[in-house]
């Protein structure tokens, strides 16, 4: 079984043996973080507003109106904060718009409520509130809207401060531009954070997809050969003389399927050498119904690493299954050879062949033979043409010298290119 990383969210149709624990996505976690950060920032501003209001309500031209505006801002802010915490998101909820509207309203209101204290006094808290509202709006509005809204709010702020007749216009402009300045910075920061979370989620989805693909491939590897055996066993027209060989093959496939299902399969007790000869001998078992011609003496003694031995044997078996199913061959040659630095196994049939330009390789030849062997540094060449049969050539490097090497390197042969 291919191990599934712990952080990968199990898919509904995925491995039922995996964990059923649901893990939030990175995007969800990022939104939750923003939904905690926004109320916290607003909380700090609210404390400032409340303290400033308590200290300055006496100097207000309209204390009741001043208190009413402050209470309205605090109430809407608290509702917006609770909304974020409840929904675990700043992107939804009903209190964003009233919050924004209050920011627009508070700026001209201060000209009436706090005349003479509009500039340079926290008693006129509307600017600080507008900066915070504009910055937090970057968490729930699209970036372009954030920019335009914050610039509009800055212009609105500058206009009313200028109208108050307090301060110089450069200092008023600087104060006002703080609104879009913070809003744009927050917008960029959140855009980056959300993009990062999306990338993490995409990477995780890719990992899950790759895991599923691996699992599917492994399943296909496991059932490909079994399919042909079962089909032939169920076919009433399968010749009686083929059945004994098919039954032996079915037994082997059943053992492989048991392994796939996780049950301990009986391991072969073969303590023999892993050579090209024993590999071919094991691979051709159960194919007595095929017109096999073995010519492996030249390469039989070549030792193979366990992985290569098993993979190449599986590849030969797959090719023979294909021959049995599709080739209609009168002769199937399995040839082995070595030139002292490489070994070669050729499986060739004289069957119907196929057009390589028009007919792509099936799963067996493409995956079970070519891709699997490629991963073990065994080169595969597949050649076929209609009416000319199919030849599969597998070439690997000798990891240790073949014992009692009595053969000479191939001289001028047609198959040992490169």
């Amino acid at each position: 079984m291919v191990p599934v990383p712990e952080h990968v969210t199990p898919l509904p149709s995925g491995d039922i043996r995996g964990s059923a624990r649901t893990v939030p996505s990175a995007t969800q976690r990022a939104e939750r973080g923003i939904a905690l950060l926004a109320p916290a920032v607003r909380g700090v501003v609210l404390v400032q507003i409340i303290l400033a209001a308590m200290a300055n309500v006496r100097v207000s031209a309209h204390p009741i109106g001043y208190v009413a505006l402050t209470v309205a801002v605090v109430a809407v802010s608290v509702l917006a904060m609770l909304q974020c915490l409840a929904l675990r998101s700043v992107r939804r909820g009903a209190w964003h718009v009233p919050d924004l509207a209050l920011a627009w309203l508070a700026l001209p209101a201060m000209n009436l409520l706090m005349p003479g204290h509009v500039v340079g006094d926290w008693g006129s808290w509307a600017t600080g509130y507008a900066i915070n509202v504009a910055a937090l709006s970057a968490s729930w509005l699209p970036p372009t809207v954030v920019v335009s809204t914050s610039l509009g709010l800055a212009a609105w702020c500058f206009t009313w401060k200028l109208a108050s007749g307090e301060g110089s216009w450069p200092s008023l402009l600087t104060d006002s531009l703080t609104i879009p300045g913070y809003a744009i910075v927050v917008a960029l920061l959140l855009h980056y954070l959300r993009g990062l979370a999306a990338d993490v989620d995409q990477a995780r989805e890719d990992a899950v997809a790759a895991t599923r693909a691996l699992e599917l491939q492994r399943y296909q590897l496991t059932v490909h050969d079994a399919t042909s055996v079962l089909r032939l066993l169920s076919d009433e027209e399968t010749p009686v003389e083929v059945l004994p060989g098919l039954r032996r093959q079915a037994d082997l496939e059943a053992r492989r399927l048991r392994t796939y299902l996780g049950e301990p399969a009986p391991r072969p007790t073969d303590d023999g050498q892993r050579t090209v000869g024993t590999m071919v001998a094991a691979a051709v078992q159960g194919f007595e119904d095929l017109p096999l011609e073995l010519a492996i003496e030249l390469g039989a003694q070549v030792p193979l690493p366990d992985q290569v031995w098993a993979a190449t044997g599986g590849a030969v078996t797959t090719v023979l299954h294909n021959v049995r199913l599709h080739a209609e061959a009168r002769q199937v040659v399995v040839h082995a050879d070595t030139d002292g630095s490489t070994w070669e196994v050729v499986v060739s049939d004289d069957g119907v062949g196929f057009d390589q330009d028009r007919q792509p390789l099936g799963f067996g030849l493409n995956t079970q033979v070519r891709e699997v062997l490629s991963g073990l540094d065994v080169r595969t060449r597949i050649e076929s043409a209609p009416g000319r049969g199919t030849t599969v050539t597998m070439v690997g490097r000798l990891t240790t010298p073949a014992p009692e090497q009595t053969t000479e390197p191939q001289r001028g042969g047609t198959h040992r290119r490169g």
Partner: protein
Amino acid sequence: MAGPTAVAETSDHGEGAGPPRVVVIDDSTVIRGGFATVHPGLDVIATYAAVEDFEAHPVACDVVVLDLLLRRPEPQAPSSAKQGRAAIRTVRDLGYRICIYTDERRSLVLALCLRAGADGVVHKSDPPEVAVQAVRDIRQGQVVVTQSLVGLTELLDRRGATLELSPRQRQVISARARGRHWKDLAATLYITEGVAREHYQAACVKLRHYLRDTSPGDIERAVGIGPGDLFDDE
């Protein structure tokens, strides 16, 4: 001894003209009865159940199609009935060309048949057209070998046997030993299919010469078997 069983009117075909005239020697009644029907491209002029019968009543033919394992069906038949290499030598000494007709596939056994005097081997499981072509080729003086003998040829050559194959012949044998199609190997070697077949035929002739002319010990060493394992009856 039983005489030949005439299954077709004997005609006087010249070598290379018309269907080859063949005699079939096989202990299977079914094969003797059905060979002519299955192989309409051959003129089966007589069939025999044993080499001794043919030896006693020989008839003129182009090729003798000889089963490798001959058993007398009659319980009282002598146990010394000729078969295998002894049967081949007998027919060869009578001056006939021999096509071994068998399902034996062990290359060394078939090699011994060539050494004993056979001109070619064809399998009973081969399609009829293959057998017909093999007999035609043998009538033309060619040597016909099966896939297992092609593999043996490559093995002997690689292990230093004095087959004296040319580089081209070696390439053709190497490709055929791997089961390559004639068209493919001809394309790979940049020669025509006909030329490839000529190289192949020349190599087969060299194989037969080697098997006939080389000492048993040398052949056994080249094949990699112990002295006397194959040639203890010679």
